């Protein structure tokens, strides 16, 4: 499955969940598919999607869904250790794993030789899901109804959709997102 199709299918299941989306094409693809005040698009701070999501999850009761990537989580593996220890029941970390640094030209990452789902399990994550990307029907509701912290390892094809840059200013993304949280 292409990453944009995966993001589309998961997004279709989301309602009031807060979404943190990784830097680069994942955020561009999500914005192209659907823009919402529940979305926090990461325009910088490579590697920190899971950390930003953890901070939000620990400060609100709302469910937080993080679209992260293999290169990103490899850059911040310590985040898995912190999330496991803080144990937020409202956090779902989805690693869209294309085994490469997609936004910079699809250079290989070590996710082709290291199974990130096994890493999460070794850290201690109890509620883990694996999708190989060949699912005919994606039953994501079960993931959303599982008590967190949830780790979702989702294999996707390398490559980016031809979608434009997000036409929003960072401060406007933040202000809109904070207003949404205050609701």
């Amino acid at each position: 499955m292409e990453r944009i199709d995966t993001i589309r299918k998961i997004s279709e299941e989301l309602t009031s969940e807060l979404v943190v989306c990784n830097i680069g094409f994942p955020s561009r693809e999500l914005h192209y598919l659907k823009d919402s005040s529940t979305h926090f698009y990461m325009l910088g701070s490579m590697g920190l999607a899971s950390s930003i999501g953890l901070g939000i999850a620990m400060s609100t009761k709302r469910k937080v869904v993080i679209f992260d990537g293999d290169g990103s989580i490899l850059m911040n593996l310590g985040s898995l250790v912190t999330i496991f220890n803080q144990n937020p029941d409202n956090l779902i970390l989805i690693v869209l794993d294309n085994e490469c640094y997609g936004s910079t030209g699809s250079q290989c990452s070590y996710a082709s030789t290291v199974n990130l789902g096994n890493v999460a399990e070794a850290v201690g994550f109890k509620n883990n899901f694996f999708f190989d990307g060949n699912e005919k029907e994606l039953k994501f509701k079960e993931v959303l109804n599982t008590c967190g912290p949830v780790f979702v390892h989702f294999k996707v094809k390398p490559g980016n959709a031809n979608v434009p840059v997000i036409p929003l200013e960072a401060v406007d993304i933040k202000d809109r997102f904070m207003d949404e949280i205050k609701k």
Partner: protein
Amino acid sequence: MDGSQAVYNTLKQSEINFVVSLPCVNLDKLMKMVEADEDIIHVPVTREEEGFGICAGAFMGGKKPAILMQNSGLGNSVNALASLFELYKLPILMIISHRGTDGEFMSAQIPMGNATPKVLDALQIPYLNPKTPDEALKLIPKAWNIAETNGTPVGILLSIKFW
């Protein structure tokens, strides 16, 4: 009043309620006070940059965040400070044990100690440098006001002789 108590009092006065930390020998007592405080969520982190990401999320979720770290952690966090905190105009109070300053016994601390104010200057991050617990009591409450009003990190550099 000792330095740790003075800093803790100002965190309370500033209504800081979310703290991430990595240890420094000079922050040991302050970290224990924060950990024991039921009104503060304390999150030990594995690397300072991760802590900045968590604090960014916590602020957006309604908390008033601070980080306790050694100045070496500033070096670990430069990209997050520029492309997350500056870009999105996010506030955070940075309580920094500034090693490599007057009285340092370990020569290995000196390069990053010397670089620390210059790194903050390069990032255009304002910082205050209280020399005594009394000065800390006066200056740190102003720091959070600056951070919140301007949407910026503010550093508190606490050199070796402060403790």
